[in-house]
């Protein structure tokens, strides 16, 4: 499948761009993270710390073990600081 992958805040800065289309067979978000981290040093730096990594699948917050079946858009970002 092909996913639209988005990055925000300092993850975006480390990756170097805000979005990319990714062809993947990843079963879960965690699998996708591993695939992306191997793509470049910037990706590796962005996705380094799984404890603070936050993720949304199709604009809903999920944890790393969420299956990707049927997903179209996956976003990665640091802990949120709104309000």
């Amino acid at each position, binding site marked *: 499948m092909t996913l639209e992958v988005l990055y925000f805040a300092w993850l975006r800065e480390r990756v170097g761009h805000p979005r990319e289309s990714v062809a993947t067979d990843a079963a879960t978000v965690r699998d996708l993270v591993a695939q992306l981290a191997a793509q470049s040093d910037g990706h590796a730096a962005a996705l380094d710390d799984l404890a603070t990594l936050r993720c949304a699948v199709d604009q*809903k917050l999920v944890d790393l073990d969420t299956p990707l079946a049927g997903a179209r858009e996956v976003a990665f970002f640091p802990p949120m600081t709104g*309000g």
Partner: protein
Amino acid sequence: MSARVQAEPFDLAVELRGFGAGAGAVVTFTGIVRDDSGHMAALDIEHYPGMTERALTDFGAAAAARFDLSDWRIVHRHGRIETGGQIMMVATAARHRRAAFDAADYLMDWLKSRAPFWKREIAQDGSASWVEARSNDEDALGRW
């Protein structure tokens, strides 16, 4: 009952026009850019268009159901906001005081750590640094 994300400033008075008709209690919270260091010029707020609106609407609906609100409003800005400028507001209307207070507090806890906004502090010398999430913001959700 509405949530908005916008770059423009908002006017609390305009937001409250006709707000909460029939309620007994209206609570508002307004967040303002505060310069703690003495060197800050502005905040720059990034967000996740699409998801942000959805998240805020979900929080509002959850608060309305839980606290039996007769009205609620969330406005959150993104982009650059100078020191002293308004960042966001929530307003809640309920029959009774306790519900209006608790709902506003609840919405703020959710906004702080579950709405896709990321703040960057812009110093007077132009340097920028991302605001780190505080662990007690996350802990605060455990209250509800």
